[in-house]
């Protein structure tokens, strides 16, 4: 369980997070979405006790991160910045984390095998590719077999197999009743992984919805051609459906073709074409965030 309540963070004159509240429930994978610069990383770092909130509070498993009894056993985190020393081998990096957190040394080789980094484990980290760095970060997060996972843009640098592997891992985590919070700036990338999405923009909450709701938002649109377009548009408007006249005989409507067909038949309006339109998830995302993020 992760809770964020009224979180505000100001860096000098920049308001990075603005009165943000949401929660991520156990047993679900929650996607944390927003354009670059929306305040995702700052929020995650506040949850992890790395950034001091200007106002508001965050809790993991019911407590502020700083007050957790065994933080590495309770929460695993991968942040976007690489946090291993370039001159140290991946294995030694994990060894000293295991030492500090009082995990058995054997656990190091287990997580190395789990993230498939055993072959490179004794090489210095400065030679690691982006994907290997992500895997090392994941290995560090998984050392304590934690109840809660917090991942900042984990798909960056992973190849398609790696992304699939990560998806399976996160899904199985959620199935075991654990909490997963994962940030991304690409909604489509997360569609198959997450159960819920928390969308933020300019530090504020835009929408907290289930992935199914977001999919439905993408699906509910149609294109209609009718010689009687004006009349159909007003009939649809009467039924509470948003309809825009694109050309003399062409309408874009925000409902399913079935609904349009029923209304048209009920009033004897002739249709020449009725097509389901599917917005991409990215279009939904851009619409929700006002299409104003940095690309």
């Amino acid at each position, binding site marked *: 369980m992760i809770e964020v309540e009224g979180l505000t963070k100001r*860096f000098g004159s920049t308001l990075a997070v603005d009165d943000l509240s949401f929660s991520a429930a156990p047993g679900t994978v929650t996607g944390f979405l927003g354009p670059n610069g929306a305040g995702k*990383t*700052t929020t995650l*770092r506040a949850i*992890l*006790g*790395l*950034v*001091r909130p200007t106002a508001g509070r965050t809790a993991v498993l019911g407590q502020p*991160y*700083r007050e*957790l009894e065994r*933080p*590495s056993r309770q929460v695993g*985190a991968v*942040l976007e*910045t*690489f*946090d*291993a*020393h*370039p*001159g*140290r*081998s991946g294995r*030694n*990096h994990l*060894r*000293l*984390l295991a*030492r*500090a*957190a*009082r995990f058995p040394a054997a656990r190091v080789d287990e997580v190395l095998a789990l993230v498939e980094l055993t072959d490179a484990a004794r090489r210095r980290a400065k030679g690691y590719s982006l994907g290997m760095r992500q895997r090392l970060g994941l290995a*560090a997060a998984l050392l304590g077999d934690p109840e809660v996972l917090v991942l900042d843009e984990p798909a960056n640098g992973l190849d398609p197999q790696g992304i699939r592997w990560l998806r399976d891992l996160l899904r199985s985590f959620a199935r075991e009743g654990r909490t997963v919070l994962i940030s991304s700036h690409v909604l489509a990338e997360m569609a198959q992984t997450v159960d819920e999405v928390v969308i933020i923009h300019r530090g504020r909450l835009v929408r907290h919805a289930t992935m199914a709701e977001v999919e439905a938002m993408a699906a509910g649109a149609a294109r209609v051609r009718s010689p009687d377009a004006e009349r159909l548009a007003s009939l649809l408007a009467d039924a509470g459906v948003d309809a825009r006249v694109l050309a003399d005989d062409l309408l874009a409507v925000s409902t399913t073709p079935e609904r349009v067909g029923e209304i048209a038949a009920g009033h004897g309006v002739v249709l020449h074409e009725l097509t389901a339109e599917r917005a991409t998830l990215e279009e939904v995302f851009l619409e929700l965030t006002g299409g104003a993020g940095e690309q």
Partner: protein
Amino acid sequence: MRALVGAELLKLRTTRAWIGYVVALFLLSGIAAAALAGGAAAFEIDSPEYQRDLVSMSVFAGFIALLVGIALVTAEWRHGTITRTILVTPRRARVLVAKQIAGFLVGVVLAVLAVVVVLAVSIPVLWGEGGGFVLDAAMMGRIGWVVLAAALAGAFGVGVGALLKSQTFALVAVIVWTLVLEPLLRALLELVEREGAADFLPGQALGALDGSVEDALSPAAGGVVGFAYVVGFGVLGWLRLERSDIT
């Protein structure tokens, strides 16, 4: 706390920086001891004062320990490893205390190494001159104080590093303080006839401890003042770390 100190020492052993520190220590103490032993007049080589001065050439251990202590914190900022360190140990005061203890232990090890180097270089010279090396209680005491001075310097460096965060800045600050500011302050204090207060400046206090400064505090008093600096800078460094956003 034991686990955290162990992790800090493992951090030092698992990058190559320690090789540079040990090489620098061997060169500095070896050359200083050779210069002093080689330049000694025959009549003084058997005097206990002279032999104790010889052992004091291992004070370079204190300087290197100070650098290691500083780097224990500043390297974490420089390489971004501070993020993972604070994730594992979110109570930041614990991180700093573990680093201070690690710095203290490193100081002990470096000082013992330095004493070994100094003796290895100077004892053959003394023998060559027909003299001998006297390992009496006073000499043992001097060695003990040198080791304690280096240990305190290591722990002190952690506070300095935490307070200043930048390796370059911390290094420049230590050099400017030692070579310019502290002598200037001493001169000013003498001018206003308060030279006794100058004995409590950090360089003077640690110097009194390892025997490189004379007519100052007793070694024990120097140790107490040095420890007070370790605690004081530790608190200042903790305040800075506690208030820092790790981004």
